[in-house]
């Protein structure tokens, strides 16, 4: 069990630097349900971004429909801005195989053509199965396959590591 707030502060610092370096004045944050949304909310406040937050549901873009069917936690995506030509920051809680981010990118591109997409994650736990890397990382954890890391919230954000199966 670990308090995630300090990690999010660290992310905010990294992101601030990165945006300045790339000369991005009006970025838009898009959080992936559910943990990514909580983190994106905190980042938005920290960075004083005025543009509304985007919420992205990737259920219908997952590559495991044939094995798992429709995911239970389905809820509507809300992107209250025009994606076309914007600089987006995609935010998620845990980066593992990279498949969720791949699905999120496909989803985003069905809304429009962004100018660029940066990836910010709270935890990079390794185990990549696709060529995906994050620009901003709160913490790197090297976990064995039979352990899972989860973000709990929404009030107090905490990281929980559990043995699976």
């Amino acid at each position, binding site marked *: 069990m670990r308090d995630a707030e300090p990690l999010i502060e660290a992310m905010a610092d990294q992101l601030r630097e990165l945006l300045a370096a790339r000369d991005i004045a009006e970025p838009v944050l898009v959080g992936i349900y559910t943990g990514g949304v909580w983190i994106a909310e905190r980042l938005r406040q920290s960075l004083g971004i005025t543009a509304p937050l985007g919420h992205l549901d990737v259920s219908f873009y997952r590559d495991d429909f044939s094995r*798992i069917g429709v995911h239970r936690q389905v809820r509507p995506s809300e992107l209250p801005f025009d994606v076309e030509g914007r600089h987006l920051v995609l935010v998620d809680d845990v980066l593992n195989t990279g498949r969720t981010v791949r699905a999120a990118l496909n989803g985003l591109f069905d809304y429009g053509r962004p100018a660029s997409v940066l990836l910010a994650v709270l935890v990079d736990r390794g185990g990549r199965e696709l060529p995906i890397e994050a620009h901003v990382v709160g913490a790197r954890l090297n976990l064995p396959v039979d352990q899972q890391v989860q973000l709990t919230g929404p009030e107090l954000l905490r990281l929980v590591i559990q043995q699976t199966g």
Partner: protein
Amino acid sequence: MSATHFQLDRRGRLLHFLTIEGLTRDHLIDILDTAESLHGVAERRVKKLPTLHGKTVVNLFFEASTRTRTTFELAAKRLSADVLTLNIATSSAVKGESLLDTLRNIEAMQCDMFVVRHEQSGAAEFIARHVKPHIAVLNAGDGRHAHPTQAMLDVFTIRRHKPDFANLQVAIVGDILHSRVARSLIHALNILGAGEIRVIAPRTLLPVQVENLGVRVFHRPRDGLRDVDVIVMLRLQKERMEGALLPSEQEFFHCYGLTEERLALAKPDVLVMHPGPINRGVEIDSRVADGPRSVILEQVTNGIAVRMAVMSITLGNHARPAGETA
């Protein structure tokens, strides 16, 4: 095996979508929530999701219908499925191969889903019982029996405006006897716990002992429409005059047509609905059909999201091996 449970697998998941009867509240809410997520797809630049990419959906329409067929086609295409449409004539003059032979031939083309519309009650269930186990069957209307996707898009539409079903008074007006839309909607509203469901029709258009379906019977709109939250007008077909069920369309409109006067009997925020296509001046006055209370066009839009939801859920359940959890 009971009719209505045939569409569920051992663990109560939807494998086919044949009838609302026998489904639980959870089943319906699941479909409604999924449809809610899919609703926004139509407003995006790319009106597609990759979910059913690689799947083949066959529209088997034994009864002609442009409107329902096109919404199912659109729903399948928006999920990136391949769609095949077969219009099979059923007039005895043209009767060729038996229904079972038709099914076998299409199965040989490696399909994943059949969307079926047929003039005989029970046809969708018959087809579901005779196709290979991996194929999902969606009922797009079988005789007078059921039209479950229509019922779902109707309650989806209602929920978007009036989510409190417990206090809802719904009136269904017109040819209940021949209506699969009415039967499915009555089941859906009862399962969702609707306050009261009323049917309003002359005696010739009411099925025997219809109260057993969980409705209150009225013969005059001036009694039945009082204070209702939702009015669903059913389509009146021309054949009803020939069958000596009604004297004329004029008399039907005079006694049952939804005019502005009759509309005023209902609650001020009443929803006016119709499964379409509407017969202006027969079931409904143009001013009401095009008026501020009408959500008829919304129903059409919602129909696509609802059908996308049902397709995703049933095909998804077929894909899942039993024993795997979500």
